[in-house]
């Protein structure tokens, strides 16, 4: 199987994942006690005209698959329905919020990549205090859930030291960044620890491999060996774990947004779930799942680019 076919197979699987996920998101309407209509209204009493409009928009008198098809087609055109709570287009409501969420996830990803991989590489290449302190530090923080980290960060850095604000989005780009810092750290901290540990292990393992010894025996300078053999080879597992953890940020960011009162997609999702505003929940879920799948696609692309052996079907360890 060539690299091209591997990618094609992965992409097809991911597309299938997307379809299944969207199916689940749509179909959840029918899992609820009562009718699909009552799920959509969230138990609210609406005037008959509005109920009829809902029936129409969701094609509720048509077979299930047809309804799914209409919903999906609409979604792909950017029409995610109307919020029952806010009486506004879901897409419009989501628009401004998406920036906050995207910014937060990107900020956290940056922290994970720079600090996580950076610390891991340093610890992997040099035994000594850098290594020991990284191991200890990551052992503690790897298990720190985001909301716990959020509380500690707020208690220490916002309330005690006053370096960062505790809540809200702020105004203006720089202020936004300042407001997103503690949330980004809270979001990143446990992933950072995991990435650092895996990076360190990968670097250690590659440094001990025989082909590195061959390069040393040929008089190749240490710097080049680190770059071309150790890091280049370790990049494979490092990319995989970083990709996985960044993808997982997409789900957890709802918790962090709520903890810091940020108005992002995640916080809105939670509020909509509490309000039983199904259209909004469905819309945001779909967007988040798409983001999750896109990140996985990027990871697969990088993996294929980095490892020529995958043409064998399964990459060796």
């Amino acid at each position, binding site marked *: 199987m060539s690299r091209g076919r591997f990618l094609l197979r992965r992409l097809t699987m991911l597309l299938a994942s997307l379809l299944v996920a969207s199916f689940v998101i749509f179909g959840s309407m029918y899992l609820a006690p009562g009718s699909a209509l009552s799920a959509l209204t969230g138990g609210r009493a609406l005037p008959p005209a509005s109920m009829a409009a809902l029936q129409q928009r969701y094609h509720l008198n048509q077979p299930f698959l047809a309804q799914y098809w209409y919903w999906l087609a609409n979604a792909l055109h950017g029409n995610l329905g109307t919020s029952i709570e806010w009486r506004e287009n879901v897409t419009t409501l989501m628009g401004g919020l998406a920036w906050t969420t995207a910014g937060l996830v990107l900020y956290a990803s940056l922290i994970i990549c720079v600090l996580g991989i950076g610390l891991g590489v340093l610890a992997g290449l040099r035994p000594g205090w850098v290594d020991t302190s990284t191991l200890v530090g990551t052992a503690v923080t790897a298990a720190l859930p985001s909301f716990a980290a959020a509380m500690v960060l707020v208690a220490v850095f916002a309330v005690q030291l006053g370096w960062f604000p505790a809540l809200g989005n702020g105004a203006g780009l720089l202020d936004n960044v300042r407001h997103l810092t503690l949330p980004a750290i809270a979001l990143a901290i446990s992933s950072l620890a995991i990435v650092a540990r895996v990076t360190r292990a990968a670097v250690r393992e590659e440094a001990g*491999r025989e082909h590195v010894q061959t390069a040393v*025996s040929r008089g190749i*300078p240490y710097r080049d060996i680190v770059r*071309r053999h150790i890091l*280049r*080879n370790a990049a494979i597992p490092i990319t995989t774990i970083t990709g996985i953890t960044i993808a997982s940020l997409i789900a957890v960011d709802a918790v962090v947004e709520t903890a810091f009162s940020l108005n992002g997609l995640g916080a809105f999702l939670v509020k909509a779930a509490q309000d039983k505003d199904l259209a909004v929940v469905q819309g945001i879920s779909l967007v988040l799942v798409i983001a999750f799948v896109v990140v996985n696609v990027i990871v697969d692309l990088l993996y294929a680019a980095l490892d*020529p052996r995958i043409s064998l079907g399964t990459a*060796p360890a």
Partner: protein
Amino acid sequence: MSGAVMNGAAENGAGLLEVSGLTVRLPAGNVLRDIGLSIGPGEALGLVGESGSGKSMTAKAIARLLPPGAVASGSVTFDGRRVFDLPAADLRRYRSEVAMIFQDPRAHINPVRRIGDFMTEALRSQGVAAREATRRACDMLDQVGIADAGRRLRQYPHELSGGMLQRVMIGAALLTRPRLLLADEPTTALDVTTQAEVMAILDELRRSQGLSLLFITHDLELAAAICDRTAVMYAGQIVEARSSDRLHDDPLHPYTAALTAARPDIDRTRTRLRTIPGRPLSAFEAPSSGCAFAARCPHAADACRSSAVPLTELDGGATRCVRAAELRGNLEVADA
């Protein structure tokens, strides 16, 4: 003293590689004890021993590839310069003059880089232009018997067989025009037919380039095939050194005799395979005084166990056996 004794090429002047009194200690214990050998220009020396005898470690010591935590004492001189004292820049030059090839080529070549990268890496780091380096690599692949060199250079290691990879490894090692090649069991991981091909290439290239060779193997006959002289190692020490043909017919050390006898011979019939009683000792387990082989030796006497045995000259070779002179000619053990 052992260096001078071992130098079969004494007529050519000082050897290219001189090792004397080399002792290597790991945290677990001694790995090499008082190793001495010498290789002249264009000469091939075989180093034979079982697993744990320290033969790979000897090569690594010479190549300055000892594992971290290893402490080496004694002297290794290349072309008159002490190898252990070489500063960084000289060390790099040394590494291009002394090349090493390894046992498992698939593990020793980076699997995610192309063959061309692997072969030209050393040249490029010395400042040779990429295109020139590739041209030389192409020529070299032809010389080691790999057809369609241009295409092979662009391939990845997993696309080549073990035999081809070993030829690539040999070719890559020879690209920097080394003067000494350390070959650590290069054919052990290959099947017999490929083994023969690779050995042939190695031998031919060695002769055409006037290369010195340290050939490490566990197979006495294989060493005899291409090496003028052979040294036998046991438990971290050299126990015998002799010209290869005389080693086979007239061994000076009971261990060598036992090794020769244990190898199944296609010309003779036996009812049982000959073995050496007991198991080979690694250097860690060798007794601190007395001959390390004494426990398994059919000719062991009290004198063998009492004190450390030095390597002594005998009839053009060297042996670490106290009773060598008196056992001469009687070491061949009778058929079972």
